[in-house]
């Protein structure tokens, strides 16, 4: 059935995108922080432990101000977002979790989720962050 074939494809595509994206994102976050803003759409919003940051300038300042980081991602999941929400703009929900150590601070568990949208050119698809939500998760045992 066309619908289910389409769904399988979108799931596979979502997984590929998620894995690739997550590798890049945390690599850049840890090692080339100044480039991080480029991964975000202009109208993207970040909610970082309840702090709302929107727009490229605010994001750049925010990432600049954040201490250097060491992320350890232990969990990754993703889902294709139903097109009814996205007006056929291919979107993927990506969820990660793990630990992070910001310099000068103790290690924290974190949960982070992204909405990625595909920006396709004839050659390839570029995924950009439309939304990013990050929270420390300190309920868990260390």
């Amino acid at each position, binding site marked *: 059935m066309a619908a289910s074939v389409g769904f399988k494809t979108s799931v596979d595509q979502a997984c590929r995108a998620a894995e690739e994206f997550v590798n890049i994102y945390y690599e850049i976050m840890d090692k080339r922080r100044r480039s991080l803003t480029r991964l975000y759409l202009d109208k993207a919003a970040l909610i970082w*432990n309840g702090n709302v940051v929107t727009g490229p300038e605010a994001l750049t300042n925010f990432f600049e101000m954040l201490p250097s980081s060491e992320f350890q991602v232990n969990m990754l999941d993703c889902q294709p977002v139903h097109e009814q929400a996205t007006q056929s703009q291919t979107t993927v929900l990506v969820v990660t979790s793990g630990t992070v150590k910001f310099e000068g601070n103790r290690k924290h568990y974190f949960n982070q989720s992204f909405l990625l949208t595909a920006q396709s050119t004839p050659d390839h698809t570029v995924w950009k962050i439309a939304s990013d939500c990050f929270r420390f998760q300190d309920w868990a045992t260390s």
Partner: protein
Amino acid sequence: RSLPSGHTMRHDHQDNSVKRRARCWGIYRRRFPNWSEPVSPSMDPSSRQQQDGDAAASDTRVDSGVRYTPYAIPPYHQRGTFHKQDQTPANMEREQKPLERSMEGHRLQGTSGSWFKITVPFGIKYDEKWLLNLIQSQCSVPFTPFEFHYKKMQAHFFVENASIAFALKNISGNIWDQDNERISIFVKPSDVPHFVHKELKSEKVQQIKLTMKKRDDSQEALDIQRFHFDPDFMRHADMAANPSKCMAASLGIHEENMTKVEYAGEMDKEKGLEPQQMRAGGNALCTTFSDKSSNINSILELFPKLLRLDGQESPRPTLGGTEAHKKLPTCKGSVFGSETVKNLVLQFLQQYYLIYDYGDRQVLLDAYHEGACFSLTVPFNPEDPALSTLCEYFKESRNLKKVKAPYLRRQLLKHTKRDIVDSLSVLPKTQHDLSSLTVDVWLQTERMLCFSVSGVFKEVEGKSQGCVRAFTRIFIAVPASNSSPCIINDELFVQDTGPQGICSTFSIPMVTPYSSSMPALSQEQQKMVPS
């Protein structure tokens, strides 16, 4: 107090009304407000920080024990903000006084020094600074605590010296807290803690820089041989043996400082530094500070026992002027974007968990879109691969870090509302603590509402009964015909909080928000939504 803390499941007399309401999705559904106003989190500054009570730092959630007692938080237990946390004695000592540590032992301790882990049972009750000050005040030997942290109910830190460990052990039982309860201290030998390797590397860099800077000020040529005899440098035996190697390796650590380091022309980065004479200030490896006065301040903050510098009396150290230690932004509470969205989301969550916890989860069929997706994940913990208490979840866990086969990845993603609800129905029975929820509304447009919820829940039956789990759940919803949220994506993350953490000692006071006066949480309940 309207908060019925200490109430364990008082379902007997509430059973009927709760069951009634849990029977059907939407039977008590209020008219959800029109959510077509495209409000994003940033738009409404006044509601942006929905504090929902105290904007205490999220590290208050660590000591869940305190949170769930009906008692006021003891005065000595002021957890404060992340800023305070950064400035605890442990952190300050570690970052600012490397020399002091080496001097106190009067020993050449390399990374092979003897480490001890110090444990204070029930230490989680105490503020870090207060506890360390108390211990220090009773301890005959000044000590530097490393990596102070709380684990479960205990406070832990490391010390790098057997005589200190012994001294600390001696004061066990001889110190009292403000409730006149004895504080015990347990001491045991430890392997070199894992953080040491990384931490000491950055210390090494600091020391190298400052050692060189000392020389730089006095315009002496750097003779690498002289490093062997510099007391700052001698702290680490391995550095003394192989200073060139260490410097090269150490310099790789801090990328941000790299821009300030000048390399001598003749040095080959790949091979490391040549053990030749290096000229400070010229081509030599040196870090640059903005001006001399800040140099001196910087050095003195790090080496307060350094009395002489360039033949001058040392000025009193002043705070500030160090390399900026970036602070983390304060953690804040739920983010809703607007009052309308807040009501919408809270109503949805109350409804959802009412059914999820007390009703038949099949009823949730009506809450999901026909083509919805659901998946759940449990983190892979390399230290505990058995994950025995989370096995019911682990079976369905779609952690792409572990699940590689494409067919399995597809299989574990539940698709269509029928499959989803069937999946949910076999997950363990739960009780969610709505007062523990933090909500972040990421996105809200005419067609889409996207938010995440995190908090804790308790397992109420089976072999994990009583165990408390932490969860984060993401909902993406579209407006249904009656404009109530219709879920299209649902992702659930579950993590253990540990058997000793909350489970055995505390019962979650189940706030029952299902009275007819609800839509929103009451004032008192809102205060319980943590930051």
